[in-house]
């Protein structure tokens, strides 16, 4: 049966129109990834609005293509400019730029692109094997479990994205949850935070919020009066040498793929963390850790495999739990809903071929990305020299169209602008936007499941403590909060003098 679905998906993807869509969207993703300031999230959010009228499969192919392209494209700017095109490639710059300075920019781009391709391909194996397992587990979930899962997702996302100040991450998540309360409530249709506005009663749409939060601040940042950066020139690819290097470090590739998928599965934690953790793991195991940061190819290979493996990892919880693994995956989740799919535990029953279709599209997109990235690399230096002051007003025009096309409603454009200001303010006070977005996505799930559970059990919270999965979530949540409050650290400190 699985092979039949894979065959069908291949048949759809290899139709000339869809093939063209795949190549174009992967190319667009690559260019957006190459350009610092245009993130993968922004690329997918923009494309979601634009592909609204596409046939469903073509839209899915284009979204997967742009996702893979954008995450992979970031390495080229990191290597040639020392500025990661997307946050996912931040770790790549550490060794990529020194290698480019030594006149081996072509080799660095070749191994980074090959490692990216391998990372995505390996993650597909996990998509195919882990999604059914996680779905089977998710079928045991009832209202309390879904409520706690959403709270856990926001907490862990807030903890891991707030760079040392978890409170800011959690605040961001709570703000997102509050935004999700706007509109008629899903259980009793009572208006909340609507102030008599008909548009607000229909709830705040996700895509304009995302475009605003992630796109707007980057556009505004380009208005700063700042100097231009030095772009390295591109040397030859040295494909044989590059392939030998990747082959020699194949164990690091596999390890980084594992790490990337694992990080990807964690709700809201993105590709950047996957890249950093994989880089750190390779450095920690290396016999020459001091060579990292000076142009060690292993650093590039680990970081790029790790961040690209996150793509598959982040898609796994979307399909099994309807919880996105990263910010770009959150946009993908909204796009899946928009195109008539219902991600979650019932997805495999309702649309059994969906997982295989996505897996096939991921494989084809990563292959297309590999070929395109090496082609595009010749023009990367020129792309990186494009004046951002010319590019950003045009991007804003696309943001307006992307927000408008969701409902053909100008109100969504205004929502995009308002949340753009919110995103700008959050950037200024160093509050991460990813937990906010996750809050907006998971808000309806948390609210409806909490009230459904309380309605089922006569308003009693006690039943929550009688369910094993709930107890597990509660313990993990409590530990996370206590550890961030420094309780465990203080306990260890207390014990240390006693032992002495």
């Amino acid at each position, binding site marked *: 049966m699985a092979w039949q679905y894979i065959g069908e998906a291949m048949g759809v993807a290899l139709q000339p129109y869809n093939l063209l869509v795949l190549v174009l969207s992967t190319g667009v993703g690559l260019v957006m990834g190459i350009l610092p300031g245009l993130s993968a999230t922004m690329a997918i959010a923009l494309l979601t609005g634009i592909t609204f009228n596409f046939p469903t499969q073509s839209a899915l192919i284009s979204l997967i293509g742009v996702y893979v392209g954008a995450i992979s494209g970031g390495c080229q700017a990191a290597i040639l400019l020392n500025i990661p095109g997307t946050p996912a490639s931040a770790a790549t710059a550490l060794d990529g730029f020194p290698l480019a300075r030594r006149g081996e920019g072509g080799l660095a781009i070749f191994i980074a692109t090959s490692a990216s391709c391998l990372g995505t391909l390996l993650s597909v194996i996990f998509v195919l094997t882990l999604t059914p397992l996680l779905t089977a587990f998710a079928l045991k979930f009832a209202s309390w479990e879904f409520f706690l899962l959403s709270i856990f997702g926001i907490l862990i996302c807030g903890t891991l994205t707030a760079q040392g100040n978890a409170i800011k991450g959690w*605040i961001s998540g709570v703000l997102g949850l509050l935004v999700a309360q706007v509109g008629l409530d899903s259980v*009793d249709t009572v208006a909340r935070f609507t102030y008599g506005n008909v548009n607000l009663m229909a709830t705040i749409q996700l895509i304009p919020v995302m475009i605003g939060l992630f796109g707007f601040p980057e556009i505004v940042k380009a208005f700063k009066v*700042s100097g231009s950066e030095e772009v390295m020139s591109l040397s030859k690819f040295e494909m044989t040498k590059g392939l030998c290097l990747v082959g020699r470090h194949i164990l690091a590739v596999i390890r980084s793929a594992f790490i990337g998928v694992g990080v990807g599965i964690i709700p809201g934690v993105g590709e950047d963390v996957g890249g950093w953790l994989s880089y750190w793991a390779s450095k920690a195991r290396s016999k020459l850790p001091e060579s990292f940061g000076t142009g060690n190819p292993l650093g590039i290979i680990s970081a790029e495999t790790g961040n690209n493996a996150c793509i598959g990892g982040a898609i796994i919880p979307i399909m099994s739990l309807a919880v996105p693994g990263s910010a770009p995956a959150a946009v993908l989740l909204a796009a899946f809903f928009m195109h008539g799919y219902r991600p979650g535990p019932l997805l495999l029953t309702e649309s059994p071929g969906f997982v295989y279709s996505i897996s096939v599209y991921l494989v084809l997109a990563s292959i297309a990305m590999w070929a395109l990235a090496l082609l595009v690399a010749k023009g990367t230096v020129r792309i990186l020299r494009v004046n951002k*002051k010319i590019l950003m007003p045009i991007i804003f025009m696309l943001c307006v*169209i992307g927000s408008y096309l969701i409902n053909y409603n100008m109100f969504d454009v205004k929502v995009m602008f308002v949340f753009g200001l919110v995103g700008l303010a959050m950037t200024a006070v160093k*509050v991460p936007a990813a937990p906010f977005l996750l809050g907006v996505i998971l808000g309806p799930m948390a609210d409806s499941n*909490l009230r459904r559970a309380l309605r089922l059990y006569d308003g009693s919270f006690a039943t929550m403590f009688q369910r094993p999965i709930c107890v597990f979530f509660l313990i993990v949540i409590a530990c996370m909060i206590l550890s961030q409050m420094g309780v465990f650290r203080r306990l260890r400190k207390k014990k240390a003098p006693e032992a002495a």
Partner: protein
Amino acid sequence: MLPPRNRDFVFSAALVALGVYATCEGFAVYERAAAPPFKIEAMSVSPGLFPIILGIVLVILSVLLLIKSLIPEEGGSLAPGEQLAALAAWLPTLFRNRDLINMGIGVAIMGVYVFGLVKNLPYWAASLIFVLGMLLFLRAGPWWKVIVISLASVGGVLLLFQVVFRAALP
């Protein structure tokens, strides 16, 4: 720029106010839901419950951040009075920061485009004025180049969306 500790102080103070407002609004939702035609009188199943919980959690987290911003550390201001004084001293510098002024004017132009131009003019005209205005403001190149880029970008977007994708633009 305002030091991070002062920024956190201002941010958390604003969030405390927002949290209190969300809690009050949650109670207002509860009262509306308890009245006819909904008659949902139990708080545990009221649509106001989750906003109330979120409001309270927001207040707690914001107070924690506020306290954190007041804890002494090298170089930061401490007491609320000092925090406010630092803020007052920082505000006038806002108007001398070229980056912030540029960003502010850019946001204002974007606001005029979203709230004024697109609403009152045909999309192509609004977008042309916006791109032209923005490129001129940012001094993105000589005037002839700015005009060519504006015409090409707006024309390209119209061609792509209206002709290729057949989407109705604003």
